[in-house]
């Protein structure tokens, strides 16, 4: 049979394809629907947080940082509760990473704060002695891209029914509504309001000035995102 296949390239290719396509179907499909259900307490990202997530991706923070806490005592001691599938229901793309040059950030919002991030992103090795993380100084001047974040919100709301402007259940039985602007201007205003809260805890004068002008530096969006990781 194999000899025959080797003389009939078309059937050879079909045989190879069947052989390799098979495993994917078996491994990926069965759990697909179940794995995309959000865990109670998991809410979609706000516009500013999403813009911060884009900053995170743009700078490939995932090259050094994971967002996946494995169920080992040593990891839950260090980072908090192990990860559960439903917590990632709104993560497009997922950001688990595959290398921990720096620590896991899945729940960094629980144990680091705005002012610390501000200092740290500016000069990591000044805060954490001998840190090898690069300084991300340009984030203090580059502006966050709120428009693209809003476009993404609209897209996921439309195509994947991500529940913006709808109550999502929280752990304590209450509900939470993550607002999404009705217009572009609206979305920008919402993001700015959120940015003001973050910037209030920051010290950098340029950042404060920018916010006062109605501009949102990347660092503010990034910190909003980091703080949302819980």
């Amino acid at each position, binding site marked *: 049979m194999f000899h025959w296949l080797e003389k009939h390239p078309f059937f050879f290719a079909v045989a190879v394809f069947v052989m390799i396509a098979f495993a994917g179907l078996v491994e990926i499909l069965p759990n697909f629907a179940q794995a995309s259900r959000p865990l109670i307490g998991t809410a979609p990202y706000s516009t500013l947080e999403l813009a911060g997530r884009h900053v995170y991706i743009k700078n490939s923070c995932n090259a050094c940082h994971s967002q996946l806490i494995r169920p080992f005592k040593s990891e839950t001691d260090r980072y*908090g509760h192990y990860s559960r599938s439903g917590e990632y229901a709104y993560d497009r793309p997922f950001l688990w990473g595959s290398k921990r040059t720096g620590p896991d950030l899945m729940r960094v919002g629980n*144990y680091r704060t705005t002012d610390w991030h501000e200092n740290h992103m500016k000069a990591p090795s000044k805060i954490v002695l001998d840190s090898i993380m690069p300084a991300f100084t340009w984030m203090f001047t580059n502006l966050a891209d709120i428009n693209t974040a809003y476009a993404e919100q609209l897209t996921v709301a439309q195509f994947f029914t991500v529940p913006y402007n709808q109550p999502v259940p929280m752990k304590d039985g209450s509900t939470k509504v993550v607002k999404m602007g009705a217009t572009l201007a609206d979305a920008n205003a919402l993001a700015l309001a959120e940015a003001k809260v973050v910037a209030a805890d920051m010290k950098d004068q340029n950042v404060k000035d920018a916010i006062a002008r109605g501009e949102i530096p990347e660092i503010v969006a990034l910190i909003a995102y980091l703080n949302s990781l819980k």
Partner: protein
Amino acid sequence: MNKLYLWGIIMGAVMLVATYFTLVISAGNSGKSISEILSGDIVNALAITGAVALILITIFVVIKYVRQMQTDTANGQLAHENWDGIGEYLNELPMGWSIIFLLTMVWGMWYFIIGYPVNAFSNIGEYNEDVVVHNAKFNEEYKSITGSRLVDMGESVFLAECKVCHGLKADGIDGKAANLNARIEARSVKYVVENGSNNHLLGFESPMPDRNGLFNNNTEALITDAEIDAVSAYVANGMTGAGSDVFAGACAVCHAEDGKGMESVAPNIAAFTPTLVTNVLNHGKKGAIGTMPKFKRLNDKQKEAVGAYITSLSK
């Protein structure tokens, strides 16, 4: 000796030394010996075994085949086809390879169909068991430690969890976080007196009023800017120097004459206490310097221990 074996031995030795090195380094200052590291954590033992097996098997197999290059000769029946001058022998499969392939296939099927379901292995299940064991051991060995052992334990928590903000020496890294070698600095006191404080320092919500609620009994008026500066310096200096009269007049009602606070009324601002630190860890704190996060994932004993450590720093 054949050069080949020599290279094999050198490579093997290099990798074994490297592996030994990893054990020495990771033992580092954890206070454990290499054998404790291996026997205390099955995962460590398996990883090292895997690493060693990897080197030895590769070296062994490669030498086996290279020996064949050196001593054997190519033979067998050639297939009648050839491609761009490349021929193919119709040799049989190497026996060892075929047997192991077959065995792994059978093992794979067995494991998947029987071994795995019957074992009912689950990541989370394993984790839960681990935690139970760890906690039982913790309770048994550390629940009752006190005194300098408690301070040592606290230092270990501090170095793992707190030094990224407060610095190795707990000096607050140039004002980026609180300097824990002294109870409190003047700018923090000033900030609190001007703005009040609502950080659950007593373990429950019990705000301190801002300057509009701070009445100086000596002057029978609200506290003034000059008085705030004076009292801030007084508190930051460890309750000495000028400003004691302001303190007595405006603060002592709640914080007591000596600043050591009163149960359920106001916290100790003259010295750290384990309770105060525990409250900070439970509720976090927002102040003049910045924001201190909550530390929910530490257990009570660890909080008490780090409290004892911090208390010991400023003595």
